[in-house]
């Protein structure tokens, strides 16, 4: 189990830890919120590979993740954790990124299995992405091929501990260094890669604009960006009658 929050190149701006507020009551309130967040985690498991097999025993009565306050969730909009279980093919990676960007902050990414760390046994495969933290900010890696449910739960407990101490800030890294992540995505998917989410506007909303939020890659994105249009929804009377 490795913690990727410390993977930073020399010269990188380290994420700023929230300073303790002077008002003791506000302090208590912040800690209460952090505790509540750490004990009510909804998990979206993106079951890409064989590691998903270890999740049913981890979630159900044998190891019972729910006693830690972790439950599976059906949609990314309502989830806190994105669990990527196993190898991520290039095609899947696009969907994983779309899913991640739909989630509301604060959000956490966990990479399970050796494949998300370094490609695992697919290190030579043209179709499998190697380093998940090149494309998404990974909070926690749980290595193993595959990790046992004990290891999965140990990893989740470590994440809970980090959230409680307000150290699980990888989601802020995605906004602060969006240019870096977008550059890696463009390297793999081509220059015209675009997601429906406006990350820079979101970064402004969360107050997370950093020095590397904008850069050459976001400039390239703006060049190619197609304006998003709402999908027309129509239902004609004829169809209604046919349904009856």
């Amino acid at each position, binding site marked *: 189990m490795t913690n*990727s929050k410390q*993977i930073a190149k020399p010269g990188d701006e380290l994420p700023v830890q929230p300073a303790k507020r002077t008002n003791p009551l506000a302090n208590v309130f912040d800690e209460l919120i952090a505790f509540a967040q750490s004990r009510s985690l909804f998990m979206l498991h993106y079951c890409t590979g064989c590691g998903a097999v270890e999740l049913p025993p981890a979630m159900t009565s044998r190891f019972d993740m729910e006693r830690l306050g972790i439950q599976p969730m059906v949609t990314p909009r309502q989830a806190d954790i994105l669990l990527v279980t196993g190898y991520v093919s290039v*095609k899947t990676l696009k969907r994983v990124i779309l899913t991640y960007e739909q989630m509301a902050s604060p959000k956490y990414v966990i990479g399970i299995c050796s494949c998300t760390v370094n490609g695992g046994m697919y290190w030579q495969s043209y179709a499998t992405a*190697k380093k998940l933290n090149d494309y998404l900010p990974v909070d926690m890696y749980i290595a193993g091929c595959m990790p046992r449910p004990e290891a999965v739960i140990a990893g989740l407990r470590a994440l809970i501990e980090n959230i409680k101490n307000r150290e699980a800030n990888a989601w802020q890294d995605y906004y602060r260094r969006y240019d870096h992540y977008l550059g890696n995505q463009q*390297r793999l998917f081509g220059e015209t890669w675009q997601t429906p989410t406006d990350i820079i506007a979101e970064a402004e909303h969360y107050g997370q604009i950093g020095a590397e939020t904008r850069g050459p890659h976001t400039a390239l994105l703006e060049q190619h960006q197609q304006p998003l249009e709402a999908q027309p929804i129509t239902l004609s009377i004829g169809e209604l009658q046919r349904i009856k």
Partner: protein
Amino acid sequence: MSEGKALSTWLDNLLTELEGIEIRRKSSRRLRIDVEASALPALLELLRGRASYVHLSAISCVDWPDEAQFELVYHVWSYELQSLVSAHTRIPRKPGVYISVYDIYTPAAFFERDIHEMFGVFFEGSPDMSKFILTEWDGPPPMRKDFDSEAWVNAHFDFQDYNPDWLQEIIAQGGGIAIRPDEQRFSRGPEPTAKGAGNKTVDKGTDER
């Protein structure tokens, strides 16, 4: 059982009558036939229409770059004889065009589309030759032997660093990763300083353990 044996003997005798094919009986239930590319559809039609081989299990493709050939293997199964016939044929690697057997076996469309995507063999008369699984792939056909997957990976992906800072904590706790220097992989060329330093600490970690 004896009836099945009689039938397979009958099939062997029938096939030896044909010219231009080579049969090798691998076992009582497996038969290998090598046939010219021009005669393969006729052979399959015979096997399906007259010898109860109604099930096309798979079409497999083998790339032989030294002989500049693709080998296509048609595996057909008979439910009555309980036996498998593998019809092997070779086509030139360039232009890599062959005739579809979709009119004889309908499932061939699926296998031919797959082979077209993975090897670049075009099947004339196949109903759909569009992309199948690799819909977002615009490189060369990846199953060809001259496609260097490792070079492609090195050009498009990075691997993790071997000696990141966070590993030092784990090594201090008695853990660590031991990877032999000849097995270490670097995407954008080896980094001599980082590599040397990494080996030292990693060896130390394992010795302590």
